[in-house]
């Protein structure tokens, strides 16, 4: 699919003047953005900026205070939650008493299964081949995250809403998330991912939606400031400003440690702020 094809269809997700307030205290917005098929968009903001709340609003779990959400051109209402969305939230949605495979089987029954994949292959796809029969309570936080990612991978949906998909994951896990996101984008899906500044998406330049608490939005909070804070957060942040398709995939594979590919900047806690700064639009 060429990009022009993708943009002819209605956007996977559109938000118009979307705002949310809890007890009259504004959490975020008003926001205007759209997400087309084949796109990965990064929502960034500090802790408490409302990233998770935004994802919950977009998934339909929370009703927006004002504004409108359209999924594939149709308005989203609470009464008709869209079957086209998979949400990965902070709570994994996994039962500690059940094994990884049992959890995925349940999810497959509840949400359906994407063509060409089964709970077992999804589990293998997130690098947990030998863990099918291990109760989820015995898995580490990162492994639980992988099972939750397998659940998202399994669901036959176009739009992924991933809240901090990189949290708790090792370098392999970060590469895995990038690979999953890229494959999903290549088959015409879209994804919104949140990150508190430090971001690890390596394939192409994702569009970014900066999200800030309402007070700060008036005091000129710049992207560069975010870049600096991410570099000093001590979280490995990788950025690959350019690169598409297979080329970017190869970079994603090689990117994490080496950081040698043209235009691939690997920023760690000690890297200069400019390394992450280059990735800012």
């Amino acid at each position, binding site marked *: 699919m060429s990009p022009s094809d993708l943009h002819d269809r209605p956007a996977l997700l559109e938000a118009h003047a979307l705002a949310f307030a809890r007890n009259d205290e504004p959490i975020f917005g008003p926001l205007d953005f759209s997400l087309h098929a084949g796109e990965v968009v990064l929502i960034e903001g500090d802790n408490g900026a409302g990233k998770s709340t935004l994802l919950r609003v977009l*998934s*339909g*779990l*929370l*009703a927006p205070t004002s504004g409108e959400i359209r999924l594939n051109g149709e308005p989203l209402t*609470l009464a008709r*939650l869209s*079957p086209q*969305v*998979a*949400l990965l*939230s*902070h*709570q*994994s*949605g*996994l*039962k*500690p*008493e*059940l094994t990884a495979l*049992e959890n995925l*089987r*349940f*999810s*497959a*029954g*509840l*949400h*359906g*299964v*994407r*063509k060409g994949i089964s709970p077992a292959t999804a589990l293998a796809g997130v690098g947990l081949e030998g863990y099918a029969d291990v109760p989820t309570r015995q898995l580490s936080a990162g492994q639980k995250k992988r099972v939750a990612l397998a*659940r998202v991978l399994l669901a*036959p*949906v*176009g739009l992924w809403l991933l809240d901090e998909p990189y949290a708790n994951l090792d370098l392999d896990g970060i590469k895995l998330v990038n690979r999953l996101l890229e494959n999903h984008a290549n088959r015409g899906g879209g994804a919104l991912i949140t990150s508190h500044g430090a971001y690890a998406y390596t394939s192409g330049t994702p569009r970014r939606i900066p999200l800030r608490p309402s007070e700060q939005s008036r005091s000129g909070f710049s992207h560069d400031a975010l870049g600096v804070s991410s570099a000093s957060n001590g979280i490995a942040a990788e950025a690959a400003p350019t690169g598409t398709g297979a080329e970017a995939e190869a970079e994603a594979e090689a990117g994490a440690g080496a950081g040698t590919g043209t235009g691939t900047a690997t920023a760690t806690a000690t890297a200069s702020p400019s390394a992450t700064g280059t990735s800012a639009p």
Partner: protein
Amino acid sequence: MKPGSTSAACAALIRRDLTLVWRRRGDALNPILFALIVVSLFPLALGPEPDNLRRIAAGVVFVALLLAGLLALDTLFRSDYEDGSLEQLVLSPHPLSLLLACKIAVHWLTTALPLILIAPLLGELLHIAEPVRWVLPAALLLATPLLSLLGAVCVALTVGMHRSGMLVALLVLPLYVPVLIFGAGACNAAQAGLPFLAPLLWLGAALVLALVLAPFACAAALRISLS
């Protein structure tokens, strides 16, 4: 990319909840032990005269089972809420009310049905009268699903709060009282040799109404709790 069928989703949910009950089967015994303890304390407190105990037998068993059910009610959505699977349930493409009806049915099967099965034994502990022996389980069969459905709505409303146990009890008891009055009323009528069918039919009518309406109320309440 098509979501699976609704019946497959219900089957998956029922299978998962039954598996969970089996994995936590120690917890499932709690309501039974509670009811057994409460009922066996009455003869100790009131003295062992069969005539005394016979008079209160049906009422005591009814109250003990109602309270035991209240004890188990909190587990209905609690763990699902805490681990986020309730979110996934709400986000599934299938009618939430139907999925919740399945959950409530499994909950009733695994908490209330064992209580009904031991009710005759509890009755014997209190020298239950001959005619009541069969009316009591019949009344419980109609009353306990009604209690589960009413309780589920209240639990759904409070699941987002911490330590909501007392609040649930306060919300639920006014709804439980009519059920208790009709259920125990049928038993008392049978004991007095009066017709007992009318209160049972009232319970049945209320159960049908709750079966239709409670899952919808429960779904709406859960959506409020999650927001």
